[in-house]
């Protein structure tokens, strides 16, 4: 890669890092894993910089790299070796959460990676079904079914509660 293309790559990644970190945070629901994911993703961006820089929408192309790296990393060696339980510590019944969004966050964290990725692309990145399918490299039917399953899983976990802000709860559980 020429020095100019290296410089272009570095400038682009530097400017996009905050957005990539935010996207990674929503996917991983863990800041440390998110930074690991971004580091791996920007390596892949370097390897595909010719295509990325020539794409109609470089940002969308790079986001797709990040999302696919997220899904690949969840299936690959490191996370298989470092298997952290996805058990959640307590149910909403036992504790009075100060903010119902915490319950929703816990429920999102418990979703399988594919469903979580679909929700982040559709409700944070505001991609439509076709765009989401292109980013994930799957069919629109898969996107629809993953979305439906994710929403159903969240509603099943949370019941009919809305993520309304409540007052501070009692000190004891």
């Amino acid at each position, binding site marked *: 890669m020429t020095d100019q293309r290296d410089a272009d790559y570095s400038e682009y990644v530097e400017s996009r890092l905050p957005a990539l970190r*935010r996207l990674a945070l929503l996917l991983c629901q863990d800041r*440390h894993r998110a930074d690991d994911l971004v580091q791996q993703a920007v390596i892949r961006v370097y390897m595909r910089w010719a295509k990325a820089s020539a794409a109609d929408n470089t940002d969308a192309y790079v986001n797709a790299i990040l999302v696919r790296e997220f899904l690949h990393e969840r299936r690959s060696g*490191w996370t298989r070796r470092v298997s952290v*339980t996805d058990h959640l510590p307590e149910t909403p019944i036992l*504790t009075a959460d*100060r903010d119902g969004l915490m319950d929703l966050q816990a*429920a999102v964290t418990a979703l399988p990676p594919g469903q979580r990725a679909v929700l982040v692309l559709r409700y*944070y990145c505001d991609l439509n079904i076709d765009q989401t399918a292109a980013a994930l490299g799957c069919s629109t039917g898969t996107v629809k079914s993953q979305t439906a399953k994710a929403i159903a899983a969240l509603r099943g976990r949370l019941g*009919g509660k809305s993520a309304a802000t409540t007052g501070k*709860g009692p000190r004891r559980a």
Partner: protein
Amino acid sequence: MRESDLRVLFKRQAATELPPAPISIPAARRIGRARLLRRRAGAIGSPVLAAAAVVGVVLAVVAASPRQPTAQAGPAPQRFNPLVPYAAMTWYPYQPRLVGSNDWRTTLMLRASTPSPAGVQVDATQVVLYAAGWCTLKSASLSCGATTASTRAQMTVTGTAPDVQGQPAYWADFTGGNLSRLRALAGIRRVLAFQYARGGWALVQSTGTPADLVRVAGSLRYNQTASLRFPVRLTGLPSAWSDVLYASVVQPAPGVQEPTQDELVIGSPANLPGTPLRNPLTIITSTQPVQGPKCRIATSPAVRAGKNSKPASKPTAKDSTPTTCPSSVINGDRAYLNTPPDPGKQTLFSPDADGLYVYLQTWSPQAPLSPTAVFAHDLRLLGPDPAMWTTAPLSP
């Protein structure tokens, strides 16, 4: 649950203040370039080109170290999450009474020990894992950890050890750093060093034999069946206390009756690993309630007013009797407030709050809240039953 709730959640999470990025763009270029080179060498199918590429990589690596470990699948994490148990020892050279881990964001320390009645640990085994990039192997010198960290270690490689889980391992002797001075293993200079994952080094120390060290290293496992659980939950803390910088759990070995002790250090996401802590909050809990208070209070001689008055002496500390130890009842629990001689520090402890010993400490006059305020308003106690504890002790 409405779909609009998801947008609110994601928007709020995305607005979270993030600490400085540990992402390295030069490293991304370097690694990406190396992978492209290997890929092209393989695609071209030229044995000469492929051999040249391999030789180039090997020569570069050999020049940097006496023996290049074969990289394992998967990289070591850039940072540890202090609340996540990444690894565990599954064999010890003796039967420990206490096992535990403590985890800064750049190091994970696993320990198994047998304390004597005097409190001095007579048998101990310790494994320290460093996050990616925190150890450097050059020639026969291995350096690990941040300069000022308690887990800083400088070692001289003295020889090769038997492979650990298929990876090359080395014997090394401590030559400096704080890790060599940790009380339990003070005076034990020999270390077994190996890469537990690509870019991440592990150091094994023990009061056992060299063969014990090799076996301990081989017993390391990266799957955990339970996350760390804590008997407290903190909510509504200010942004200066929105990140868990350190977590420690000490619990009895199976079949042993000992109390559990947990410690959390809470700070700002802007507090970079390897740098001095800025205004942290420390919380220590134990399932063994303390019988009776024994607090230390600061005393200073009275200053005589007038032009010939002498300046006040530096405050000293003395143990106070229960009747004079300042205390109050907060949310139904007796709490004792200390102001140690160190300027700015404040501590509060409750010997028995819902069956737990609780200790809080702030370290600076600029602390955003006092320990009393945290204990009264922001701390939820989950009792002495670990089944009721949380893996998320810090909530927004």
